[in-house]
């Protein structure tokens, strides 16, 4: 696949870490995905499923053990230091905890200005102007430009983190759980801001989250990860309305919904995810799967097309489609 129309193409990414005891942590196993211009792809999964590691490899912050990442048609692995630096202008990142990702000794203004200085964008006067515009864009008042991160609230700090990420006019923004640390009333403000700026600047967004509610609002496409693999992918509404992988089903049923009259009647998915050091044979989900059969223990199910732009890594995906047809 050498599709140059895509902003980012990751192919067969693998990332293994070695522990001190000589064991191998299989953080990411054979993941391929791509993001089109202006598209928001949500990466969903529970802690330890490898979604942040995947995000870091796409940013070029971590090198894959195998596989490749192509940004705007260029292979990250083949770039030298200087080219990599230039490429970072077009991909930026927003982190979960704004108080940990902003330098406490810098003012809001200096934080947003740093990327402009780094990439020598504009004259000093233009940079100053641009900084004030950016701060206004993310909803910070001009008098807050001289404030330090600790003088801002959690929501304002995350706005600042967004301002910094957008300073270089990137094509792709990787947002790793950007609203998880915020209170509900503030969370909605920040999600709306992110959506507005994405549309205005025609950004592509890789939105890493465990929150299905937020993801259903913000993304066009969704990729569900479990233990280092994408188990299901497709258009967001289609996947959430009619999942084709039992893990997606379990995940959706676990999400508590603010509707007391529609309480969950069935017992939830049992057990914990297995350790990424000792992966089960075959399908990694089979130890918790209510649909598991013999073949699941022997053969790793690969992500395969199931029609209408959807993908599932379940041996029994076709049967799930039948179930779906019966439900409707």
């Amino acid at each position, binding site marked *: 696949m050498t599709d140059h129309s895509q902003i980012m193409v990751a192919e067969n990414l693998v990332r293994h870490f070695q522990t001190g005891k000589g064991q191998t942590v299989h953080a990411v196993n054979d993941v391929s995905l791509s993001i089109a211009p202006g598209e928001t792809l949500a990466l969903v999964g529970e802690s330890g499923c490898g979604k942040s590691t995947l995000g870091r490899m796409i940013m070029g912050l971590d090198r894959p053990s195998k596989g490749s990442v192509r940004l705007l048609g260029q292979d990250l692995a083949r770039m030298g230091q200087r080219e990599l630096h230039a490429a970072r202008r077009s991909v930026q990142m927003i982190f979960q905890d704004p108080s940990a990702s902003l330098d406490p000794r810098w003012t809001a203004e200096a934080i947003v200005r740093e990327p402009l200085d780094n990439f020598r964008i504009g004259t000093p006067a233009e940079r100053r102007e641009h900084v004030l515009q950016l701060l206004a864009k993310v909803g910070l008042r001009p008098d807050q430009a001289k404030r330090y991160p600790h003088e801002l609230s959690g929501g304002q700090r995350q706005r600042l983190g967004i301002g910094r990420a957008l300073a270089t006019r990137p094509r792709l923004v990787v947002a790793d759980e950007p609203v998880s640390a915020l209170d*509900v009333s503030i969370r*909605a403000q920040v999600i709306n801001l992110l959506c507005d700026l994405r549309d205005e600047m025609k950004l592509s967004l890789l939105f890493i989250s465990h929150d299905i509610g937020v993801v259903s609002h913000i993304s066009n496409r969704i990729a569900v990860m479990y233990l280092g693999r994408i188990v299901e992918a497709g258009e967001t509404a289609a996947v959430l309305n009619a999942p084709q992988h039992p893990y997606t089903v379990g995940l959706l049923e676990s999400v508590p919904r603010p509707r007391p009259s529609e309480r*969950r009647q069935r017992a939830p998915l049992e057990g914990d995810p297995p350790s990424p050091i000792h992966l089960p044979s075959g399908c990694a989900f089979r130890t918790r799967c209510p649909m598991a059969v013999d073949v699941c223990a022997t053969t790793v199910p690969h992500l395969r097309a199931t029609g209408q732009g959807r993908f599932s890594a379940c041996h029994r995906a076709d049967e799930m489609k039948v179930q779906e047809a019966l439900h409707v």
Partner: protein
Amino acid sequence: MTGETFLSVRNLSVGFGLHGAIRAVRDVSFDLEAGKTLCLVGESGSGKSVTAASIMGLHKPGSAKVEAARLRLDGIDLLECQEPELARLRGSLMAMIFQDPMSSLNPALTIGFQLREALLLHEKMSTRAANARVMAVLQRVRIPDAERRMRAYPHQLSGGMRQRIMIAMALICRPRLLIADEPTTALDVTVQAQILWLLSELQREFGTAIIFITHDLGVVAEIADDVAVMYAGSLVERGSVHAVFENPSHGYTAGLLRATAEFVPGEPSRGRLEAIPGNVPNFSMLPRGCSFVERCRFAAAGCHQRMPDWRDVAHGHATRCDQSVVYGAAGIPIEKALG
């Protein structure tokens, strides 16, 4: 029971700092019936945990100024209790579990030891009998391979398993009140669902009353009988979970419900979320009048003057808001609800 409410809190106020000048909890009143679940909802800093700690008597003497007209649990006046008496009640009559089980468990002691300790503190029994009880309770909270786990240290268990241990420890002496302070916030959703399921199972079995503290409205809808919504140290709305969710009658409750990103199968995404503007006010700079007034879309001139009194919306459903909140329930588009 003598017809008296199981837990009754009246006009609870808690202040910190010099002369209790920083009033983290102001004039909070609620009741809880035996065997029921009350969810205390609010955002960070709204005073939920301080309220819970006051019931448990966990504030250090001298650090907090706790005042209340009444604080009665199961016929016992907690305001009259001295520390030794409270220490006896904690664990046996009332118990608490916290958000982060790793910081509540001792990393240097085995699970079995810590559970046995909780039991032996309140009941006279042999170590062997205690071990048998510990085994039974571990199996009850569905810890697989319980015998081996008793010899394990906290770091050897997963987050979900540690929270099960905390629940086992809290319930081992069969308390009649369990206070759960954001017990599932640090857990993944599938594990959260397991813990919520387990808690309601145990509640049915033992008849434990639960005060569940959370900021997650989805969790509230899942487990609450009654809801009490807190904002900036005050209770703003209370009632049955159905009443509060289907007819939110305070600007803050309605705003929270609307701001919650929710996926509804079969329905298209609502697009833009309706955010609550502004930030939670600082305790030292609370507005005069209703503390939510500056962020409320229903605010009228009177709201700036004084904090509204409680007003009954329906039987058992009351709000501290004088305005008619015409938001409608979550899920109805705002335009429709307002039109």
